[in-house]
């Protein structure tokens, strides 16, 4: 295995003005700026045009869609005519499936985020303790492999792992651990969501582990030397040096995790649009997808409204987390 020379060279971002502050500063000073080199616009134009069409436009259009009764199957509701005010939101308020799905998504997030983070942190700390560079490189590569797999492939493999009769997982539970009645992973309403969780954690912990590892490699080794001269043990070093120094990484990992509330692909591949046994794994993401693309009139308006609520909710959560970690540091 080749080594990762760039890990060691990586540098922490220098503290600077936040992107928001910079943005508003630029807005204020725009009028006083000179036109300068007009080639700049030529260079930026292709990327910008592509971005405006395929990224910015859907944001605007999706927002409008959330306030309309847009049904893909019924052409009369297309375009801008089907505006219906807050109807989608009053319907959502009374929609039990929506609230149940939100509960499932929250449960998924509440288990997934800490589980993945703890596992990732554990793996990162362990790898950082390996002295042999080649061996450490091997561990890094292998723990990252699940992350680069196409999600669908990873999940289909897990699906065959979970198979009650021919799956390797239950064979292992029966023969090695002596569990007489292993769970019917994907077929039992009590286990379906857990099956998704295990697969999801497996697929992503390597990414966070690598981020933590980059953070750990950036800590000045002299800090540890000084601490061990002062008599600090392994746990104390971890608690008072490693953890505080990793705070920026925690912020990144948590902000990246905000999207977990919208989990769709995992359940979609494992259970298609059905949502699993007794819809026990019907997350809001899947419910939105099903509403817009799989059932009835393909109610994209209602789906957009739900996804607006979900998006605001995850933005709120990540905002709160961000604030908490920020103020704690100050």
């Amino acid at each position, binding site marked *: 295995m080749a080594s990762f020379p760039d890990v060691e060279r990586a540098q922490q971002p220098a503290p600077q003005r936040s992107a928001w502050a*910079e943005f508003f500063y630029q807005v204020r000073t725009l009028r006083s*700026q000179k036109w300068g*080199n007009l080639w700049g616009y030529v260079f930026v134009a292709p990327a910008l045009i592509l971005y405006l069409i395929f990224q910015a436009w859907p944001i605007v259009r999706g927002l409008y869609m959330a306030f309309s009764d847009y049904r893909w199957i019924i052409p009369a509701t297309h375009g801008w005519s089907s505006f219906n005010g807050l109807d989608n939101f009053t319907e959502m308020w009374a929609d039990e499936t929506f609230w149940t799905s939100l509960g499932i998504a929250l449960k998924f997030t509440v288990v997934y985020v800490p589980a993945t983070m703890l596992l990732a942190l554990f793996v990162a700390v362990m790898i950082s303790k390996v002295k042999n560079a080649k061996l450490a490189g091997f561990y890094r590569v*292998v723990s990252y492999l699940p992350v680069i797999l196409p999600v669908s492939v990873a999940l289909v493999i897990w699906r065959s792992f979970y198979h009650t009769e021919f799956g*390797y997982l239950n064979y292992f539970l029966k023969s090695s651990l002596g569990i007489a009645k292993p769970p019917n992973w994907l077929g039992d309403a009590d286990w379906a969501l857990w099956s998704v969780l295990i697969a999801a954690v497996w697929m992503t912990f390597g990414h966070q582990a690598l981020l933590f590892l980059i953070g750990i490699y950036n800590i000045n080794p002299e800090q540890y030397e000084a601490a061990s001269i002062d008599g600090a043990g392994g746990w104390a070093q971890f608690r008072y040096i490693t953890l505080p120094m990793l705070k920026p990484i925690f912020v990144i990992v948590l902000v990246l995790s905000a999207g977990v509330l919208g989990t769709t692909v995992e359940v979609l591949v494992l259970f298609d649009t059905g949502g699993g046994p007794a819809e026990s794994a019907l997350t809001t993401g899947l419910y939105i997808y099903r509403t817009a693309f799989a059932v009835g009139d393909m109610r994209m308006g209602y789906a957009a409204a739900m996804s607006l609520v979900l998006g605001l909710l995850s933005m709120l959560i990540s905002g709160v987390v961000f604030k908490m970690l920020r103020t704690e540091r100050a």
Partner: protein
Amino acid sequence: MLRSLKRNLRLDALLVNLSLLLIVLICLLPFLWSVSSSLKGREELFQTLPTLFPQHPILGNYEFIFTRRDMSMIPINMLNSFKVSFLAVLIQTSLATMAGYAFARLDFKGRDLLFYTLILLIFIPRAGGLMAVYELMDALGLRNSHLGLALLFSSAMSTAVFIMKQNFLSVPRELEESAIIEGANTWQVFLHVAVPLAKGGMVVVALFEFLYVWGEYLITRTLIDFPELDTLSVAVSKITGWAALFTSSAFSTYGAEAAAHVVAMVPVILIFIVMQKWFIRGLTDGILKM
């Protein structure tokens, strides 16, 4: 005292390596299992004691997915995956390089405002995004189109532009300045002087885009209606109909599915192992800096 310390250290190292070996096993088992299953015939797959190393390895499953054109569309799907990934990588890398250069080197009105807008838009939730994308692609006639997928996948380029900007800022600008003095125009300076120095960033951008597009599932599944246009990552989740086939010691449906999974993973695994150095660089230059 020193001896007991030494013993402690050795014990620590043992514990560290043991727990990491467990992680390695957990990470690798599904891979090994698919490879193993893909080499097994019917009898060996369903024997009561599954083995990790097949006793009678066969290639019949691979032969099936690649040659039975009437049953298996895997070769076509694979070609589609390469086509979409290649196009998306080409478009995104070239456009992000141009934009990154402008943001790093050219001074024009509103430059930084544009740049920070691009970065901040990452954090705006795409409410109704997929529905709006579906409508947009339909209106543009880009549903069921590989070019459409490639344009869509390459348009999410905030990170790519950021990486390229950082990259141009980190190379010395003296060469460019002397080229300007010699009378080269901005485009010539960009193409002949700046780009050759920015290859590292371009490799990083291309690598991340390839991994993303190769594995993309949700949008592809939504926009593509015909199995023969599916990319590999969607196709492997939809394999049906093989179960009715006659299986033997030289071929098994389950083994053939495993072979399809292996085919879908091999390109990304190879690329990742070969390019891991660039990969780390991308992580440290990209999201960790933002």
